[in-house]
């Protein structure tokens, strides 16, 4: 996935992608910050890239907000630590969650260096305003995160966030295919990935 952060900045404070994802996947809106559940959200440069940010960064970077979500890492630490294989990597590289197998030990939350995972500290259902009947809701005591919309990919559709963006800021594609659109974009633009020095191999790229 490539996110063109210049586009996001141009149309700020647009949050269509976030609303689309959270509505579609029945992500609860819990006002109490400590119990928050989120799959995709925005944060500032110095929090999205704490190792890259510095005090002389230009104005542009300062004002810009970055979309954050699971990076579907090539070498995902969350998968490595999970004692039940409730979180696992698919053949195509997507890091998936089986919320029916998860025991809620939260080892994966400690292991993810990007804060991509949320735990259901309480029953989420009362906090889903307008439930989507076509997607399951979760119960308390399990971990969840972005699933790269596997349910939509299976139907040949784009991930909901990418589809929801009217300005084309989010592009998804197959990194393994050298001729794919996404590889073309990556060849033509300067991009950043979050915390590459940890060796996790994040698959979300940011055009600066």
């Amino acid at each position, binding site marked *: 996935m490539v996110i063109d952060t210049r586009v996001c900045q141009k149309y700020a404070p647009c949050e269509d992608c976030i609303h689309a994802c959270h509505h579609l996947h029945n992500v609860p809106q819990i006002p109490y910050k400590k119990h928050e*559940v989120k799959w995709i959200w925005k944060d500032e440069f110095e929090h999205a890239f704490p190792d890259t940010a510095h005090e002389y960064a230009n104005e542009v970077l300062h004002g810009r907000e970055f979309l954050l979500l699971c990076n579907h890492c090539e070498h995902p630490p969350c998968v*490595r630590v999970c*004692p039940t294989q409730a979180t696992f990597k698919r053949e195509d590289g997507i890091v998936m969650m089986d919320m029916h*197998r998860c025991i809620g030990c939260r080892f994966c939350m400690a292991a993810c260096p990007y804060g991509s995972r*949320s*735990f259901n500290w309480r029953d989420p259902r009362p906090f889903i305003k307008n439930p989507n009947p076509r997607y399951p809701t979760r119960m308390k005591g399990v971990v969840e995160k972005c699933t790269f919309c596997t349910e939509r990919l299976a139907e040949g559709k784009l991930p909901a966030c990418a589809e929801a963006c009217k300005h084309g800021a989010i592009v998804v594609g197959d990194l393994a295919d050298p001729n794919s659109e996404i590889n073309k974009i990556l060849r033509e633009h300067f991009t950043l990935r979050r915390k590459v020095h940890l060796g996790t191999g994040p698959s979300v790229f940011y055009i600066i």
Partner: protein
Amino acid sequence: MLEKALVGSKKYYALVFFLAAIFLVGFFFFLKQLKFGLGITGMSRDVSWGFYVAQFTYLVGVAASAVMVVLPYYLHNYKDYGKLTIFGEFLAIGAVTMCLLFIVVDIGQTHRLFNVLLHPTPHSMLFYDMIVLNGYLLLNLICGWTALHAVYKGTKYPSWVKPFIYLSIPWAFSIHTVTAFLYAGLPGRHFWLTAVMAPRFLASAFCSGPALLLILIYIVKAFTRFDPGEKAIRALAKTITYALLANLFLFGCELFTSFYSGIPGHQFSIKYLFAGLHGHMKLVPWMWTAYALMLVAAVLLVIPQTRNNLGLLPLLCVLVVIGTWIDKGMGLIVGGFVPNPLERITEYMPTFPEVMISVGIYAAGFLIITVLYKIAISVMESRGLI
């Protein structure tokens, strides 16, 4: 031998019922947690492990430390520990039981616990932790129980337990090493990502565990005729001293690496714990207390006159136990989560139900230890050994 647990003095019954009552109170709060979810605790999206995991980590150390009496006795034939080993092993049984209970209350879907067995995952450290902890419980049950049974029968322990005893020695090291590996292998958690984590865990375990054992022995001594002998107590005090010094030394190594290298990420958690970060300083008084207690204890334990003062020793043990408990429990666990991976700060303090559930588990553990110690004392009394 079990019948010895059923008859005892009024004080014994009172203690048993008292601990059982506290356990039930804890259980009541646990039922509330089951109903509401783990949101009843102080944990959050950012600090996703808290008081429970802290107690778990500390108690694994206590359990492992039984090896500090088992090893000299069985490997070096250090006869003075003869009477102590059984108590060390029984303390380990209580401690491992508490560890397992703390895991049970910490997971979000309690009834799915057995998924860990149904889907064994050899690349997860928790998988190994489950194996070594349960194995250690079993080993101590076998070794402790047969040793006591031999006393009961007035014989030497049967030779078939020997391999189990020898196995229990490296096994004790393994439980705490694997527990350290739960934390030390996570990318992006600078505070935990250190090769001295396992050595430091062992060092703090080998001072806090024997210190707790000595305190318990002093209590037993006050109420029964049991006396392990001055020599045994003095020897154990030396173990505590060396381990405490090693623990402080290893912490010093951490400080050097973090601050001499000057890498900010390696300093954040330590700064948060000891000085506060951006005005967040809930743990600062706790950490200073922990290190003050450990330092005072270290100085007084090093000086032979104070270490060998058998009246002062239990007090020093209390300092060691409290100091390491704060440091290795809350300090280590919460420190690893602050700041979060996005360098934002969320603080943590356990809530009342969370503390009550933990107290309940401690009560259960000490209930087990009380009953086991009672059996041991009665058996020794009936044999005229004490």
